[in-house]
């Protein structure tokens, strides 16, 4: 066997160049980070529920004061960041499983990235603004 590609598995050179093989994609990293963020949120869920309970029925000034407390802000930031990564990866899996038209899939994955980033930044910006007290 003198064929150069024989040692690199069954992928055609074109497929490999497109990065669509397992070695060329980020699937393994996604799998790992989906679980890292899940464990993170598992730890954070109780404090986050307690924070939400503390804020129930308060007016804007009271809610802002609590959310701006360093420990509360930090816990919320961690939860928001973990959520954003987790939901971005999860939705990508769902898209790849159910959307088979390449163009629609591309648009859906783009939209997923934009949505996840926008939601995360909106939440992060709000928390930081409350923390800085302006």
């Amino acid at each position: 066997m003198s064929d150069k590609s024989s040692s690199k598995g069954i992928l055609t050179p074109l497929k490999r160049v497109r990065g669509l093989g397992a070695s060329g994609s980020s699937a393994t990293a996604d799998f790992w980070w989906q679980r890292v963020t899940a464990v993170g949120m598992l730890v954070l869920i109780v404090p986050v529920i307690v924070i939400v309970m503390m804020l129930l029925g308060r007016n804007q000034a009271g809610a802002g004061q609590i959310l701006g407390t360093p420990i509360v802000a930090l816990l919320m930031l961690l939860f928001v960041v973990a959520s954003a990564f987790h939901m971005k990866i999860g939705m990508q899996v769902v898209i790849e499983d159910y959307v088979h038209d390449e163009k629609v899939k591309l648009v859906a994955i783009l939209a997923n990235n934009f949505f996840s980033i926008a939601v995360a930044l909106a939440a992060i910006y709000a928390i930081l603004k409350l923390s800085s007290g302006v």
Partner: protein
Amino acid sequence: MAMSIFHRATGVALYFGTILLAWWLTAVASGPGAYSIFSSFIGSWFGRLVLFAYTWALMHHLLSGIRHFVWDLGYGFGPSEREGLTWAALIGGIVLTVLIWIIAYAFGGGR
């Protein structure tokens, strides 16, 4: 098992539910006007229904996520274990949701 779709469905619901989380935080950061709009939505019967559904989706997704962790670690694949884990996630999700709302009303209801 058909129940696995619940994990995905609740995940997708939570995905769009994060709009609520971002709206809540930006409303507090924006000021009293924006916050009162958010409060009147979440205080309405429809808002409370959405929040209740969100709570359930979160609790179910969390418990069925733990179930996936058990499977990731290589346990719980026996027929009865599999069924048991699924039912535990299903019933546990409902129990936790009701519990959280009881505590929420006991805590925040007076304010």
